[in-house]
C-alpha cells in the first residue's frame, strides 16, 4: 500500500512537477529571529480563508434579493442546521481579519519592515487594508435588516460629499434614486465577487513579494538600511544563519492560526452573530442605525467633529490617509529600523491606537444621541406641589430629558441638571429655554407661558 502511494506520488510529481515548484518556497530561508511577532500576517490570511469557506456556506442558504434576504437571514439564524454558528463564524472571522490586519500593519510599522526593498509589500498591504474594511462594511449591508438599509443610506450620504461626482456615486452605490430592488444585488455582487477577487489577486502579489524580498529580519538599533548594501547583506545573513520557513518558522503561523480559528468558532457558539433588527423597510423609521464595531470609530468621528468641517473631513480625510500611507515608504524608505531609534514612530502608533480606541468607546456610549428610552422623573419622585409635578412631566414630554439627566435618569448630550437650581436663577433658566443656544433648540416657539413657568419651577428646585 505504501509502495503504491509512493508510486502514485512519484507519477504525479513526474507529470506535474508541483512539489519541485513548491519546495523552494516552503524551504526558503528566513531570518532566525522571525518568531511570534511575525504571525499576524498569516493570521489575517487564515481569517480570509475562513471567510471564503464560511461565505460559501452562507451563500448556500442566503437569498441575495431585496425582498427575500431578510427572511433567508431569519432562516439561517433560527432554523438552518448550524446556521447560527455559521453566521457567527463569518462575523467573528470578519472581526478577526480586521483586527489582525491592523495588528500586522502596526507590527510592520513599528519594526519598519516597509523600508527598502519592501516598499511594494507595504503598498499592496495598504490596498489590502482598505479592501478588508470595504468587505467588512459591504458584509454588514448584506444582513439587510433595517440597520443594513440605513447603513447603505449613510454610506451613500458619505459618497455624496465628494465634490462634483458625489451625487452620482451615491446613486451608483444604491443602484438607483432610492433604496430598492437593485440595491442588495449590487452589495452582494461587490461583497461576494468583485472585492474578494481583488483581494485574492492582491494577496497573491503580496505573498510573492514576501518571497521575493525575503522576510524582514528583526531590527537592531545601529544597523540602518542602506539600499547600496542591504540586499547583499541580507543574502549573506540568510546563508549564514537562515532557517527554512517550513518547518522552523511556519509552525508558529500554523499554531497561532489554528488558535485564532478555534477562538472564532468558540465566540460564534457562545456569543453568536449580531441580532437582526427590523425588516428592511425604509418606511420603518423607529430605528437607531449603528454600524458594527469596526466602523464605529468613523461613525463617532462624524458626530464629534465641528459640523462646518465635516464635508472637508469626509472627503479629504480618506484622501489624506491613503496618501500618507502610500507615501510612507518613499518618505522614510531607508535608515534606522529599530523602534528604539524611532521614538516618534512609536509615539505616533500609540496616539493612533488611543485615538481610534477612544472613538470606539465614544461610539459605544454615543453621548451625542438623544435617549429616547428614558423614563419620566415622575416615575421615581412624587411631588406634592402640582406645578412641580407638571414641570417634571413636561421636562420629559418636551424632550428635555432625552438630552439632560436629572438624578441619574436621562440623556447625556446636554449638561446634567440634577443641581442646576443651585447656580442658575429662574430668569437665567427662562432665557436659556426660550432662546436655546449652545447646541440646544430654542423652545420659545413651542412652549406656552404656563408650561415654561412649570419647567423653570421644576428646575429651580433641583438642588
Amino acid at each position: 500500500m505504501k509502495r503504491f502511494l509512493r508510486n502514485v506520488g512519484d507519477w504525479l510529481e513526474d507529470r506535474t512537477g508541483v512539489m519541485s515548484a513548491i519546495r523552494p518556497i516552503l524551504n526558503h530561508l528566513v531570518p532566525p529571529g522571525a518568531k511570534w511577532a511575525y504571525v499576524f500576517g498569516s493570521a489575517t490570511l487564515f481569517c480570509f480563508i475562513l471567510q471564503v469557506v464560511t461565505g460559501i456556506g452562507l451563500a448556500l442558504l442566503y437569498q441575495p434579493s431585496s425582498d427575500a434576504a431578510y427572511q433567508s437571514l431569519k432562516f439561517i439564524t433560527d432554523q438552518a442546521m448550524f446556521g447560527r454558528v455559521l453566521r457567527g463564524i463569518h462575523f467573528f472571522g470578519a472581526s478577526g481579519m480586521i483586527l489582525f490586519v491592523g495588528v500586522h500593519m502596526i507590527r510592520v510599522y513599528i519594526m519598519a519592515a516597509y523600508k527598502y526593498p519592501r516598499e511594494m509589500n507595504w503598498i499592496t498591504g495598504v490596498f489590502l487594508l482598505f479592501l478588508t474594511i470595504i468587505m467588512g462594511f459591504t458584509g454588514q449591508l448584506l444582513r439587510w435588516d433595517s440597520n443594513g438599509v440605513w447603513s447603505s443610506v449613510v454610506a451613500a450620504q458619505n459618497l455624496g460629499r465628494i465634490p462634483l461626482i458625489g451625487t452620482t456615486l451615491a446613486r451608483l452605490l444604491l443602484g438607483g434614486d432610492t433604496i430598492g430592488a437593485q440595491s442588495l444585488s449590487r452589495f452582494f455582487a461587490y461583497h461576494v465577487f468583485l472585492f474578494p477577487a481583488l483581494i485574492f489577486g492582491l494577496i497573491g502579489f503580496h505573498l510573492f513579494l514576501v518571497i521575493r524580498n525575503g522576510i524582514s529580519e528583526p531590527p537592531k538599533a545601529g544597523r540602518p538600511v542602506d539600499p547600496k548594501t542591504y540586499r547583499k547583506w541580507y543574502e549573506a545573513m540568510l546563508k549564514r544563519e537562515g532557517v527554512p520557513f517550513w518547518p522552523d518558522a511556519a509552525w508558529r503561523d500554523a499554531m497561532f492560526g489554528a488558535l485564532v480559528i478555534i477562538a472564532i468558532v468558540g465566540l460564534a457558539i457562545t456569543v453568536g452573530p449580531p441580532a437582526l433588527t427590523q425588516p428592511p423597510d425604509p418606511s420603518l423609521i423607529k430605528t437607531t442605525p449603528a454600524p458594527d464595531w469596526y466602523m464605529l470609530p468613523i461613525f463617532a468621528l462624524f458626530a464629534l467633529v465641528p459640523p462646518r468641517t465635516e464635508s472637508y473631513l469626509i472627503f479629504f480625510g480618506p484622501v489624506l490617509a491613503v496618501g500618507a500611507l502610500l507615501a510612507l515608504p518613499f518618505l522614510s524608505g531607508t535608515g534606522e529600523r529599530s523602534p528604539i531609534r524611532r521614538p516618534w514612530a512609536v509615539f505616533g502608533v500609540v496616539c493612533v491606537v488611543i485615538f481610534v480606541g477612544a472613538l470606539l468607546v465614544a461610539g459605544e456610549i454615543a453621548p451625542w444621541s438623544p435617549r429616547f428610552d428614558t423614563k419620566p422623573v415622575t416615575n421615581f419622585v412624587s411631588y406634592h406641589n402640582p406645578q412641580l409635578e407638571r414641570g417634571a412631566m413636561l421636562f420629559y414630554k418636551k424632550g428635555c430629558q432625552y438630552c439632560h439627566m436629572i438624578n441619574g435618569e436621562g440623556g447625556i448630550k446636554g449638561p446634567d441638571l440634577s443641581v442646576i437650581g443651585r447656580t442658575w436663577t429662574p430668569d437665567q433658566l427662562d432665557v436659556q429655554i426660550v432662546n436655546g443656544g449652545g447646541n440646544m433648540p430654542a423652545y420659545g416657539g413651542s412652549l406656552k407661558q404656563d408650561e415654561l413657568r412649570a419647567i423653570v419651577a421644576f428646575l429651580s428646585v433641583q438642588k
Partner: protein
Amino acid sequence: MNQEKSEPTSENTPPVAKHPDHDSRRDFMMKVSLGLGGLAAAAVAVPVVGALVAPLLEDKPEVWRSVGTPDQFPVGVTKLVKFENADPKAWAGSTAHTAAWVRHEADGQFVVFSVNCTHLGCPVRWEADAELFMCPCHGGVYYRDGTVAAGPPPKPLPRYAVRVAQGQVQVGTAPIPITKFSDG
C-alpha cells in the same frame, strides 16, 4: 519562420535587419493581435459597465402617490406617511417604500418633509410634544418647519412636492436626498 537560424553572417549585423519584410509582418501581426484583443475586451466591457451604470441612466418619472384624505391630517399635526417609490421593480418587496412626515400647516396647506437627516441620512422621528424632529444617529434636531435646531445637520430637512387632488393628499416621489459637499 526560420530567419533567425539562417544566414550566420557577421555578428554586428542583427539578422532582422536582413529581413525587413518578415520584421514588418511580425510587427504588423503583433499590432493586429493587440488591437483585436483590445476590441474583444471592449466588447465585453461595454455590457458589464453598462450593467453597473444602468440605474443612473434610467429616467424615473415623478409620480403622485396618495397618502390619505385631508381630514386624516388635522391642522397643526405632523404625521408619518408611507408611499411607494416611482416604478419599483417586482422584487423590491418592502424596500420599495419611502416614509415622509406630512404637516398640515393651515387649512389645505401641507408640507411634506423627508425623513432623511441632512447630516448622514438617518431617519428622523417627530417628537410631537417637544415639536421637534430628532435624529437617533448623531443627535441632529430640527424645528417643526424643518429648520436646524441643534446638532450637526448642515441644512434643513428636504421637502417633497405635495398637492391635494381628487380629494387626496398626494406626495410627489423623488430621489433620496443626498447632501452635497457644498451644502456642508
